């Protein structure tokens, strides 16, 4: 292993820039003659707009323009994935306006934009806009939204507030398994709605060049080419060659910056009208009201088991809250990223899943770190632990009994996916060792002496990432391919620039990708630059989400590097007067087998650009290659998370005293970065399990709309993590990599809740919902200790 190649914990190249305040985020960018936009948002969850009077605002000091939905007649903000109903009919896909058209559907919906010389002037003027609202009753809960008589978010465009009523599997076939079952275990649970809270709020700058007719959008995006496609082709009808989208340094995304948002279209469109650059930056309270939220499922599930605890069949019924509009990937999250994961690591032969996607008067919901897989894992791992308790089995033994064995790969599940590799016994065993699982009873007894309730919880999870094979997702309704592109440009003196369609917003691509290059070309990291985030500089890109950057973007780089090595070998063969078949390339040097001939990579690069002595008949000068890579399959990370908690029964407070994560992420390029990704994922998983609660009141106001009320995990909420990897290699990509960005957030929530319930078991508490706050735990203890007669 070289010091900077695959497997080395190289310090992140990008961190000097970030830690010394030299990052270049969207809000750091300023254009000459720039104006500022303030977006006036709906204070109501549901209302008709009877009229908007902008006269006073237009004449206010510093105001350049004011636009409403009446002015901005453009295309619908598109949804990227069509899902069909059970009967084959397409989903309801109501119009999604950039600026409200006659109606507002959630608190925070965009009503008007004020453009002024300064941000304060724009905000002052917005107070002068008079909107005549006729308030309507609102609905925020998905179950209530499909009850008869519920307010209709989209009126006739979505009867019963239904987006789709979708299924996977054959319900009758699964029912037949239930007839043979010795046991049926059922569970009802909610996967709580979360607010993503990237550190950098969203921002966008629109610019229009009258001379060339070109538009530029700087935006906080995880995928600038996708934004160019969605906004250009669907909303504003701008062709690619007249629209440049730049996503510079981006301070965290977690999914929330995948989507095309109204504000991007507004500043771009308006820049064309006012012929000046326009900057918009969200305030934190706007982020709460306009960044796509995550999760929000209500589910019921039944598991059929034989007398020995072997799973026979699983039925899952889920209501997924879509919010008020369909965000870009919202529709695939509770279907193809959720239902297809419900086999988990188990051999369950028959599975049926029904998902109803439902509109409500809330912020749109879309993918958030894990996207569908945390929801599936939480359901499955709570259910399996409950089954163990109900059958009187050991919670580890019931899992082992149902594991897909390590020699069964490739393994076809009943829910469409074919797993290529894995070893669930291995990750389980290692996690149990590291967490000293067997000594837990002693620790519990010791805690009891201190008046604490100690519990241990486990989750053996699987996820599908590295999205995705285009042909597969296309057949499932995706309106795009999910390949990636890369360009390797070798400069004359041997330094290298990589242009990747992946986008780094905290993941460390500038280091990990450079390690691939260093390993392949044998050159030092300082000679390598990773470029991303600009549609004018990068050929194409589908961006970063679904833990796809290395497994798809990295593979594209490897493919392009392979082409570079091929061509360089030919040049080297010419220089060494050898046949190309005899040329070997290792550690940056070309050699000829059986001779002492040798030429280094730098010399070859120089030769390519100063081709005085060059095989012109057969080769073009220059050394630069492109590649597109479309994966053969998803990748399937999995593993085991074990959580240990202590609960103070006097207050209901939970302290996590141990968190062990053993993850199979495939080959590890940079162990330090992988560990960091897992730490971050665990923090978010623990946040979901214990702390984060997105609350709406009945009128549709977000009551947890600031950090005073929305609890983000902080360092002292977290234990010292014991995080390590125990990998099998991905069988269908050259690097053997799987993905590590989301596993922490996917595997941990059920481990935490199972631990909490284990601690409370002796008091008779059977269920708790996320987040398991001190109050909820205290209430559960109270309820369980109440004499039955009093209930």
């Amino acid at each position, binding site marked *: 292993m070289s010091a900077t190649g695959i497997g080395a914990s190289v310090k992140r190249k990008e961190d000097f820039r970030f830690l010394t305040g030299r990052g270049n985020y969207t809000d750091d960018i300023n254009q000459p003659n720039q104006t500022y936009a303030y977006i006036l948002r709906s204070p109501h969850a549901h209302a008709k707009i009877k009229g908007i009077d902008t006269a006073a605002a237009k004449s206010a000091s510093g105001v350049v323009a004011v636009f409403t939905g009446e002015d901005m007649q453009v295309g619908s903000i598109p949804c990227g994935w069509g899902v069909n109903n059970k009967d084959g009919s397409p989903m309801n896909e109501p119009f999604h306006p950039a600026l409200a058209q006659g109606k507002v559907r959630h608190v925070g919906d965009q009503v008007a934009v004020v453009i002024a010389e300064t941000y304060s002037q724009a905000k002052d003027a917005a107070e002068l806009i008079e909107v005549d609202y006729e308030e309507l009753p609102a609905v925020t809960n998905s179950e209530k939204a499909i009850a008869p008589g519920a307010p209709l978010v989209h009126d006739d465009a979505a009867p019963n507030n239904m987006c789709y009523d979708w299924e996977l599997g054959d319900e009758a076939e699964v029912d037949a398994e239930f007839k043979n079952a010795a046991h049926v275990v059922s569970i009802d649970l909610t996967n709580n709605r979360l607010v993503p809270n990237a550190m950098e709020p969203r921002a966008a700058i629109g610019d229009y060049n009258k001379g060339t007719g070109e538009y530029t959008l700087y935006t906080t995006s995880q995928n600038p080419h996708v934004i160019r496609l969605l906004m250009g082709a669907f909303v504003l009808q701008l062709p690619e060659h007249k629209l440049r989208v730049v996503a510079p340094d981006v301070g965290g995304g977690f999914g929330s910056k995948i989507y095309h948002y109204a504000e991007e279209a507004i500043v771009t469109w308006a820049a064309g009208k006012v012929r000046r650059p326009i900057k918009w930056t969200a305030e934190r309270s706007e982020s709460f009201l306009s960044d796509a939220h995550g999760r929000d499922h209500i589910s019921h599930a039944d598991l059929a088991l034989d007398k020995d605890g072997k799973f026979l069949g699983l039925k899952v019924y889920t209501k997924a809250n879509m919010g008020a509009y369909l965000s870009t990937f919202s529709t695939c999250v509770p279907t193809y990223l959720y239902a297809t994961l419900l086999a988990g690591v188990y051999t369950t032969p028959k599975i049926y899943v029904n998902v109803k996607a439902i509109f409500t008067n809330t912020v749109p919901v879309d993918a958030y770190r894990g996207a569908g897989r945390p929801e599936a894992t939480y359901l499955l791992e709570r259910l399996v632990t409950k089954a163990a308790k109900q059958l009187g089995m050991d919670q580890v033994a019931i899992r082992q009994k149902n594991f897909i064995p390590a020699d069964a790969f490739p393994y076809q599940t009943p829910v469409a996916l074919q797993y290529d590799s894995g070893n669930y016994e291995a990750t389980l065993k290692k996690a149990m060792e590291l967490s000293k699982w067997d000594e837990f009873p002693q620790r519990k007894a010791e805690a009891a002496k201190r008046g604490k309730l100690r519990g241990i919880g486990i989750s053996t999870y699987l996820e599908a990432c590295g999205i995705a094979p285009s042909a597969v997702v296309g057949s499932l309704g995706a309106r795009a391919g999910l390949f990636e592109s890369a360009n390797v440009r070798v400069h004359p003196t041997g330094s290298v620039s990589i242009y990747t369609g992946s986008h780094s917003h905290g993941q460390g691509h500038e280091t990990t990708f450079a390690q691939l290059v260093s390993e392949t070309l044998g050159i030092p990291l300082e000679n390598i630059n990773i470029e991303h985030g600009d549609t004018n500089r990068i050929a194409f890109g589908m961006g970063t989400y679904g833990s796809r950057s290395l497994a798809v973007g990295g593979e594209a780089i490897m493919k392009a590097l392979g082409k570079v090595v091929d061509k360089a070998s030919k040049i080297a063969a010419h220089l060494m007067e050898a046949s190309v078949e005899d040329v070997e390339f290792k550690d940056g040097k070309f050699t000829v087998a059986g001779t002492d001939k040798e030429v280094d990579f730098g010399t070859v690069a120089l030769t390519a650009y100063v081709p005085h002595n060059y095989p012109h008949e057969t080769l073009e000068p220059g050394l630069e290659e492109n590649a597109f890579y479309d994966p053969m399959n998803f990748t399937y990370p999995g593993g085991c998370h074990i959580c240990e908690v202590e609960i103070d029964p*006097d207050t209901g407070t939970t302290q996590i005293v141990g968190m062990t994560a053993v993850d199979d992420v495939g080959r590890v390029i940079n162990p330090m970065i992988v560990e960091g990704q897992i730490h971050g994922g665990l923090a978010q998983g623990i946040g979901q399990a214990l702390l984060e609660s997105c609350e709406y009141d009945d009128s549709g106001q977000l009551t947890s709309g600031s950090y005073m*009320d929305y*609890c983000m995990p902080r360092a002292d909420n977290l234990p010292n993590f014991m995080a390590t990897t125990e990998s099998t290699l991905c069988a269908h990509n050259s690097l053997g990599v799987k993905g590590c960005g989301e596993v922490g957030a996917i595997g941990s929530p059920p481990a935490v809740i199972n631990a909490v319930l284990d601690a409370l078991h002796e008091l008779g508490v059977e269920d708790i919902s996320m987040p398991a706050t001190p109050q909820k735990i205290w209430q559960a203890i109270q309820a369980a200790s109440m004499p039955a007669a009093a209930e």
Partner: protein
Amino acid sequence: MYEFSYHKPSSVADAAKAMGSADDPKILAGGQTLLPTMKQRLASPSDVVSLRGCRDLVGISSDGSTLTIGAMTTHAAVAASGDVQKAIPALAALAGNIGDAQVRNRGTIGGSLANNDPAADYPSAALALGATIVTTKRELSADNFFTGMFETALEEDEIITSIRFPVPQAAAYAKFDNPASRYALVGVFFAKTSDGPRVAVTGASQGGVFRAKDIEEQIAAGKTPDSSGIAENSLNADIHATAAYRKHLIGVMAKRAVAAAG
């Protein structure tokens, strides 16, 4: 934030003068509450009078029986003060646990008391310790100072200059954090004084900080304190805690405070 005129006097006398001559002025201390409120456009003073130049408002002194803290003394300074740690260690600990390091380096004791946030920590200490709040116009006992949630006996242009704490025989503060904001969901300050036990509760009540006389009597009678005597319908209920949970926590925190005071 709306526009305003900014003043930075260098003495409390000049500050009082600036307050008197402005239309709708506000004092700016650490700004940890006032500035966020102004940024959210919930406050729009015509004039902001900063006390940061008033060196006469900063400082801590102790004569053994009384601890005096200048209004502009930051939470960080109180937490780190040897005088406070010696005279009333519970007060130093309380200050050291307010917010985060940035907040403690800006926020002031005067600002906290003047603001009387129903979930703030200092008001419970002032009330339980029987502090005297010294202003540009008079001296007020803590019992008469706090008049309701975000309400005090201060007049519009009255400035707190210092706070005098009689040194108790023992004291302790037990706080149950609101998990999100880390203000007090319930905080109980217990002081053993020569006049008997004093217990003040913050975070819990609709009326702001209050003295739990019932619990004081239990302690005086040598009983383990509990919250059975507190009327649930006087307590706050919000997305973080029901009134019943708050009532329960008052009992738990009172017990812990008494135990910690030793």
